[in-house]
């Protein structure tokens, strides 16, 4: 039986490689979803190391939260306290949130690859919305675009590739948030598998309805 999780339980449960999917009510959120043919507009990845608090590795336009890798506030590719990031996305951006658990053994080598990726990519600026569309279109025709400006799905795809979870026969910018939704088929390597979406409940009531179909 599919039961929603409280944020506290989801934060406790999540492990490295789990996906956190977001769906929001803003015009930009809708545009991303329609354009990428997907019901979600943002994806982040859990980073859960040793006894550290769970962290969220993702790219976002906002800069309201402290990046725990750089120790600064900046836009673009960021590493956040996962709980804080989820609260920001739920309460400030009124996003619905889902967790997809990664079923795979994350080895120390994969953790090292992940950390190396964080050290390399953290702080990469987020592209302007038009540039973003251009990048996505370029990704579609499988031409690697400038790695300077990565965005959310690209960060997660690149990290999965570095960890050996995803083949690198496609450039990371071929991926969009919808590729990480269970309605798409993501071919993972090493026998890894992603569970289906589990609703993560926010502390606040549902955001206002927008007229589009929601479940």
């Amino acid at each position, binding site marked *: 039986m*599919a039961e929603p999780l409280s944020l506290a339980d989801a934060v406790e449960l999540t492990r490295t490689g789990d996906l956190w999917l977001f769906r929001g009510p803003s015009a930009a959120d809708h545009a991303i979803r329609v354009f990428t043919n*997907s*019901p979600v507009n943002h994806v982040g990845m859990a980073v859960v190391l040793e006894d550290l608090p769970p*962290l969220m590795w993702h790219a976002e336009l906002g800069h309201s939260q402290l990046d*725990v890798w750089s120790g600064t506030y900046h836009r673009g590719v960021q590493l956040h306290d996962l709980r804080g990031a989820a609260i920001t996305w739920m309460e400030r951006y009124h996003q*619905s949130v889902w967790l997809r658990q990664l*079923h795979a053994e994350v080895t120390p080598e994969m953790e090292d690859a992940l950390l190396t990726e964080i050290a390399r990519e953290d702080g990469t600026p987020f592209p302007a919305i038009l540039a973003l569309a251009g990048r996505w279109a370029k990704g579609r025709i499988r031409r690697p675009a400038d790695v300077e400006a990565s965005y959310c799905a690209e960060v997660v795809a690149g990290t999965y590739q570095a960890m050996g979870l995803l083949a690198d026969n496609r450039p990371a910018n071929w991926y969009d948030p919808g590729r990480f939704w269970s309605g798409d088929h993501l071919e993972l390597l090493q026998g890894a598998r992603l569970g289906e979406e589990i609703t993560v409940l926010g502390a606040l009531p549902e955001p206002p309805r927008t007229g589009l179909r929601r479940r």
Partner: protein
Amino acid sequence: MRKHSAWKFVGLAGLAGVAATGVAVVRSERRRRAYTPDDVRIRLHQRVAAIADAAPVVSLSAAQPERFRRVRRIVGKSFQLVRRG
């Protein structure tokens, strides 16, 4: 075709909802401590530094492109000849 894929197939997944059909799988217990953001940053940087230290030392010949290797071979041979001579 999987259950949500129809939306994707007809190009209307952007208007579809997310059917949350996942069932949470319990993971093994994890030790957790309270850390300040500074502690987290220091620990992360220490781990990355440890990866860099542990990285195997790549020998010069393996790291150089072919033409440099050839140059080194030639230089090396001449050096041997000079020594022998």
